[in-house]
């Protein structure tokens, strides 16, 4: 075990555990904070891969901005602890914590991923590619040259979503004050 391996193990553990807790936390506030921990863990993994710009943007946009919006959404909605209304066999089947369906689904998904990894791994280049010396420039070039059109389409999509949200939440006759 060397330093990066230990760091990877810690970050992967943090990411997986908090992702699991996002689904199982009974309080929506806790779920939101675990989501932030998941984002931070993923940012750490990006750092470990020397994708420093991606890591910083992950923290800035997801752990910073998106989390703020999530927290405000929670505060503006009616809060109560989620009590599972499913009892008996339904809880046994569907409960995210100990239900059979989520367990089988999760284990099955992990098995598929691992088997795909084992099948594909021999054909992967073993010598790691040199990390881009200036990943910011590289990403900017990719975004604004090769993928400029998809980038613009995505921004139009986000704009449409924003306008849609405003129309959906607007009260009749316009909000007061």
């Amino acid at each position, binding site marked *: 075990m060397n330093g990066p391996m230990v760091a990877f193990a810690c970050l992967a553990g943090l990411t997986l555990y908090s992702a699991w807790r996002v689904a199982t936390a009974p309080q929506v506030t806790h779920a939101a904070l675990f989501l932030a921990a998941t984002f931070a863990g993923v940012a750490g993994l990006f750092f470990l891969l020397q994708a*420093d710009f991606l890591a910083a943007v992950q923290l*800035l946009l997801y752990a910073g*901005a998106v989390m703020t919006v999530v927290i405000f959404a929670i505060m503006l909605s009616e809060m109560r602890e989620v009590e599972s209304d499913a009892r008996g066999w339904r809880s046994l089947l569907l409960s995210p914590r100990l239900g059979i369906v989520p367990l089988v689904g999760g284990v099955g998904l992990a098995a598929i991923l691992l088997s795909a990894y084992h099948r594909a791994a021999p054909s992967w280049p073993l010598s790691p590619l040199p990390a881009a010396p*200036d990943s910011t420039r590289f990403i900017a070039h990719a975004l604004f040259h090769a993928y400029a059109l998809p980038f613009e389409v995505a921004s139009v999509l986000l704009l449409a979503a924003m306008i849609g949200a405003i129309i959906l939440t607007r009260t009749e006759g316009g909000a007061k004050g």
Partner: protein
Amino acid sequence: MNIYLAALLKVVGVLAFVLGNAFILIWAERKISGYMQRRYGPLRVGGPAGLLQSAADILKLMAKEDFVPGGADLWLWWLAPAVALVPAVLVYLVLPIGRSFVLQNLSIGLVFFASVTSFTLIGIFMAGWGSNNKYSLLGAMRAGAQLFSYEIPLILSTIGVVMLTGSLTLQRIVAAQANVWFVVPQIVGFLVFYVASLAELNRTPFDLAEAESELIAGYFTEYSGIRWAMFAVAEYSNLFTTSALAVTLFLGGWRPLPLLAFIPGWVWFVLKTYVLVFVGIWIRWTLPRVRIDQLMDLGWKFLFPVSVANVLVTALVLAVR
């Protein structure tokens, strides 16, 4: 040297500086407020030059009971001061203190600074929510709205500097100011940056998140003793680092004034930073607190358009030149 040992030494060094900085700034804030408002207490108490008062404060805070409010969300309540302190310590990593004195010259220094400081909000929210107190929660929500609103002009106002330099590395930004400090071509950016950074720091006139007359102490109402001290240390450390970033981006970083180049760079860096810190303290004890709607108006209707216009004008000038 072993990289782990080096990392440990850096962390210990930064922590020692953070604590010393808090000690100095608490003393300075008392003294300056005392002189500005003719407060008798801070001008007379505390031994030689009042320095012992800070020491007494530290002893008091360490000895105080670590009070846990009833019905607190324990995990969040315990973790919140640490989550608020960690980003405050992490940003020292990229500050260019001298010509070849920076802990880690990250190529994305500026983005790193912005992204790490944006994490402070999570600590504040954890404190507000975990305390199980409506004043704490209201303070945390105000802090959230405020940090979120002012982060946008704060980041946009630095874009002009990045465009002039063509780099996000803080050392290169300082190197690019060899002829003229960026405060001259980017005066608008500097003013927006400074106002927005005062708001990010939750200091008067923007201290709505802890407005005493309305919210007792905002998100750390329920904290006492060493946990409260962690929040206070983080705030004073943020005051230093934000001023240091302003110095780096706009005031030439470690570059000396003409004719005084024999004084080493790190002295200039620290000196300029503490001058800006003094301006921050000066503003705090001079201006009254703004109302929440004035705060939002200033952020969204004034600073945001001005910073966007600054980016556009900078781009135009660079394109024409």
